[in-house]
């Protein structure tokens, strides 16, 4: 098991390096020149060819791509993520200010989605056809079908514009104004969690129904175990395998959703940074974001694969 984990970690590191290589070269295949985009957008009307060349040299864009990659990788290993062309600021600083915002919303949404998703799915599965199931199942259906950005707009319209209960967007640090932060986060967290919550609930319901007709559950009932023991010891653990897979997906979905949710609620987080940087071809920022997103998701996947074996000893590691 330990050897398996070590091998997977080495693999994750290799994948991460590959990811940065692909992104590095792909970004340079993009039509257009980041400096020209920057000049055009920042409306510097008079910039001479010499100044442009100097900028190109300053950002290292005049050197061969391979040299640029190793240059960048070497700096990353020393903790320097480079300097953004567009924001003319260090990427490390850009990310340090934005990552906590995205993480606060994302982690809250993830925890809510996992707990509520598992619980509601379990309830609906155990009480199939009863009131709880009749309420949960259609709601979960709506949850997986609703476009998050549109849900955001509806929420803004109802709770922001019409009722004036919640602020319609923006972000304030909880250390500056905790109450405002909490109020600002209600709608974005609701939006980011809804997809994961609904899919986990659905999956949990069908897993529970599936597990409930297995022979070992019938055996458990027939030998007179109580419902609590059967549900907690026999059903829950066996129904959780697909949920663990979904948890991996949910992390990705929440990060992906942050792109849309941060757009709707005008939150300056990682999602917005990523989108703006892709559109502005701000190489250095996109690479750094790739590294961070990729690292997080690889770790989550590793955790998912390891927990399979814990939940289902029939799955062997080689």
């Amino acid at each position, binding site marked *: 098991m330990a050897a398996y984990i070590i091998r997977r970690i080495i693999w994750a590191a290799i994948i991460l390096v590959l990811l940065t290589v692909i992104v590095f070269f792909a970004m340079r295949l993009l039509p257009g020149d980041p400096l020209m985009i920057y000049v055009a957008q920042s409306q510097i009307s008079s910039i001479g060819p010499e100044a442009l060349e100097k900028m190109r040299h300053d950002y290292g864009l005049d050197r061969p791509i391979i040299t640029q990659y190793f240059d960048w990788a070497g700096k990353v290993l020393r903790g320097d993520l480079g300097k953004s062309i567009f924001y003319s600021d260090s990427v490390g600083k850009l990310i340090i200010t934005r990552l906590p915002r995205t993480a606060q919303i994302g982690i809250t949404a993830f925890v809510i989605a996992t707990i509520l998703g598992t619980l509601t799915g379990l309830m609906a599965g155990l009480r199939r056809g009863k009131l709880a199931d009749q309420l949960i199942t259609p709601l979960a*259906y709506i949850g*997986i079908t609703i476009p998050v950005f549109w849900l955001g707009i509806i929420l803004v319209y109802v709770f922001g514009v019409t009722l004036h209960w919640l602020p319609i967007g923006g972000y304030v640090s909880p250390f500056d104004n905790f109450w405002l932060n909490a109020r600002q986060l209600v709608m974005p967290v609701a939006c980011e969690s809804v997809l994961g919550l609904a899919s986990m609930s659905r999956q949990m319901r069908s897993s529970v129904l599936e597990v409930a007709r297995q022979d070992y559950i019938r055996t458990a009932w027939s030998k007179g175990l109580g419902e609590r023991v059967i549900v907690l010891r026999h059903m829950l653990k066996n129904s959780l395998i697909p949920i663990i897979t979904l948890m991996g997906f949910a992390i990705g979905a929440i990060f992906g959703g942050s792109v849309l949710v941060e757009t709707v609620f005008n939150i300056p987080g990682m999602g917005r940074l990523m989108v703006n940087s892709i559109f502005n071809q701000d190489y250095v920022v996109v690479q750094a974001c790739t590294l961070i997103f*990729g690292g997080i998701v690889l770790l989550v996947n590793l955790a998912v694969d390891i927990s399979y074996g814990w939940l289902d000893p029939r799955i062997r590691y080689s």
Partner: protein
Amino acid sequence: MTIEAKANSAFSEAPVRVSEWKRFRRVFFSRKIVIFGLVVLLLLVIAAIFAPYLAPYDPYAIDMRSTYQSISADHWLGTDSLGRDTLSRLIYGTRTTIQVGFVTTAFAAIVGMLLGILAGYFSDKPINMIIMRTMDLLISFPSIILALFLAAILGGGIQNVIIALAISSLPGYARVMHGLTLSIKENDYILSERAMGSSSIRTMLSHILPNALAPMIVLITLQLGTLILAEAGLSFLGVGIKPPGAAWGAMVNAGYGDLTRLPILSFAPGIAIMLVVFAFNLVGDGLRDALDPRLRGTL
């Protein structure tokens, strides 16, 4: 009771054998909500094919004299900031939805399932590692960001959105299929099949695939919905079909700016997206119930 009567009663209690197709039809059409989903999808296809005949106005015609019209007999869903008829644009938007949804899913599902079953079946061979680590590489990027990224490299056209979404949804199919294969191949019937000398391809296609099909069909329909959502998300962010082309996500975004003025502009396309995704899920669930191999041959 005579032996004969006993035999008869035992016979009448045994499940009645019916043809596969008959059972499928009976189960599939027994739920009204599934029929509702089917009707919505049918309407979607009809709207996409006959858009020019169904749309009351030209979806691209700018009319600055009738901007921001509210709901009326002339414009059932109002008009946007350029005076274009919202209903007509919605109807034309079905084409984008259908095209992206079906083409992407067909490609991603076939390739993804193939990769997953290979990786799962040969779980102790290097091919497993190569496939699954490549999928890890792809999945380590949230699909919408991967699609954004690919669309930025390839350009924003609809073909490139399809390519981007297909690549980003591959790992979903491959990973689920991989997991199912791992679990199914531990079953005794696979072992006995192998012991009888069945070839790998035969075991994969005739024994593992059919047992994985029901969950895969659920995944495919869920993915169809997810893809339509992803396409809407991309067009909401401004990637995909170029203006003045009609895409539902882009319409929601355009309407967001006029939320206080005319909320219907972003509400209507959102409801359309939701309805279609909803319908795909309903039909998918109906299919799952009707295709479940454990119910096969019985009523």
